[in-house]
């Protein structure tokens, strides 16, 4: 079954074209990694799927015809975790996660017991129960990212879009977060689409990859087919070595290119 289907989708931001005639089918239950150099259109693609950007072409969510879903209905089917979530001041973790129930709570009503039960369950899934009364703006980066994820889970949407979810996390927290997303995806039958800039993490955690470059799909398919030295050097202008990890998965290592402009590779190392 198809979770998300895009056909001929083009997006322009402030008159500048960002996505060009994009056609893409994301099957239900996929762990799709969205990769591509900076400015390739990864964030815009996620925002378009979430219905936040004006676009041309068709975006289908599940089996509903394009454009048929209201804002609230869309929020029940797609949860988006932005790269830099706004951290409101003075809001407790409970209230923050409760915001995820907004598309279910009737406009002028208050949350039900059921809503609170779902919030409790989302907190529990992300190991945040002890943090429930804490303020979101007092949490550390990793805790905060889990709170954002809990809010997305409370939306009970079958599709989870993550925009560079590991931004600002150290290597341990990056791994823990992605493991968690993986486990949640399995347990809750989610379709997970994550934009990622770290190719090794993408190689370890995604089944399928879509490589965007200049607003077009440059390559897509199983992880091993997309993460090749040739494709990466062509689209990232980076010089890398792709290694097979004995434990499964793929490792992408930037290498210093002798005799060539080393700046792009240098940037990779700096990360």
């Amino acid at each position, binding site marked *: 079954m198809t979770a998300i289907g895009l056909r001929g989708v083009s997006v322009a931001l402030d008159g500048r074209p960002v996505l060009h005639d994009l056609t893409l089918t994301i099957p239900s239950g996929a762990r799709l990694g969205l990769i591509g150099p900076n400015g390739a259109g990864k964030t815009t693609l996620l925002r378009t799927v979430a219905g936040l950007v004006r676009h041309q072409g068709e975006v289908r969510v599940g089996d509903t015809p394009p454009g048929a879903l209201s804002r609230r209905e869309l929020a029940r089917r797609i949860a988006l975790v932005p790269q830099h979530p*706004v951290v409101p*001041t003075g809001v407790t973790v409970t209230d923050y996660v409760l915001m995820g129930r907004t598309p279910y709570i009737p406009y002028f009503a*208050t949350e039900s017991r059921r809503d609170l039960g*779902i919030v409790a369950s989302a907190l529990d899934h992300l190991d945040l129960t002890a943090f429930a*009364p804490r303020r979101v703006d007092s949490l550390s980066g990793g805790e905060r990212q889990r709170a954002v994820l809990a809010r997305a889970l409370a939306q009970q949407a079958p599709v989870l879009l993550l925009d560079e979810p590991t931004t600002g996390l150290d290597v341990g927290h990056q791994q823990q977060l992605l493991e968690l997303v993986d486990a949640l995806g399995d347990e*809750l039958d989610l379709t997970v689409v994550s934009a990622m800039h770290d190719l090794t993490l993408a190689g370890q955690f995604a089944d399928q990859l879509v490589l965007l470059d200049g607003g077009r799909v440059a390559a897509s398919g199983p992880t091993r087919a997309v993460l090749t030295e040739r494709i990466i050097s062509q689209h990232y202008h980076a010089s890398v070595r792709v290694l097979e990890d004995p434990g499964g998965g793929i490792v992408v290592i930037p290498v210093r290119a002798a005799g060539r402009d080393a700046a792009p590779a240098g940037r990779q190392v700096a990360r």
Partner: protein
Amino acid sequence: MTVTERLGRAPVAPGPRPARLRAGLLLAACACLAGAALLAVLVGPVRLGTAGVLAELAGRLPLVDVDSGLSERDAAILWQLRLPRVVLGGLVGAMLALAGAAYQGVFRNPLADPYLLGAAAGAGLAATLAIAYGPDTSSWPVDLLPVAAFAGAVAGVVAAYALGRSGGGRTATTLILSGVAVASFLTAVQTYVQQRQDETLREVYGWILGRLTTAGWSEVVLVVPYALLSAAVILLHRRLIDVLAVGDDEASSLGVRAARVRLVVVAAATLATAAAVAVSGLIGFVGIIVPHTVRLVAGSSYRLLVPLCLIAGAAFLILADLVARTVMAPAELPIGVVTAFFGAPFFALVLRTSRRSL
């Protein structure tokens, strides 16, 4: 099993506690308001007895028949002078605090106040024009000044909103900046008119500083419909204002049409502000100090902030008016001076003693 079923099933005890208005806090706030109102009714050039006033008030309730023992003159003072003024002060204070809180919420800006979007400048200009050039309205059924001030306040905000929208931007910042532009322009015109007609300078200045004057219940009747309407609209939107705290983009991804919520709330807050300005002039400070004080004491969720601001705003302005008409009696201080003079140190005290940060 789908995500809906799995997350929905988990039994959890004791459960998370979201921000909700607890009964104790609400009762305490109501008690403060009742105390302030009673004090304001009792104190004045003629002191009224507590027991008499309470009995007189109770006597008006259906099925209650008590003899208050108030003289006819005292009863008239109570019903025609003190009570209308206390009620009007309460309504104006509640409206200004409500509008301030609402603006702060939808613009995500702690410095927002009811006059942010040109309401004050619009009302100021219209009132100045009415004072300077208006016809003699003593024979009219309604006075021109409040009508002009009301229309001016609404027109100022509509102009700011239209300007903000025409720029293509629908963000909070664009709107605030258009409000600044509109307000500066209207204030410039108002100052010019005021200087040209300097015989009205004193009257205009007095109006700008704010004053509560009542002739029986007519002002109260004028304000009540707007007060009820805007309070109802903002109370109904208080949960959505909370969601706007994560920004328009994330609010949209949570199913909220942010621009529309902002428009509706701003419209309601503008009606409240315009109604308050129409009967009381430009009373400053209430719309900013009351919401922040409530925030420091009770927390920042609009689910408690909105109802508590209504009550606290009413109590604050009733007390400020009491001070304004008693400290230099029989002369009256402009109430705007009182709200700032007592409000600022009080706010500083709350700011210092509170362990919450804004």
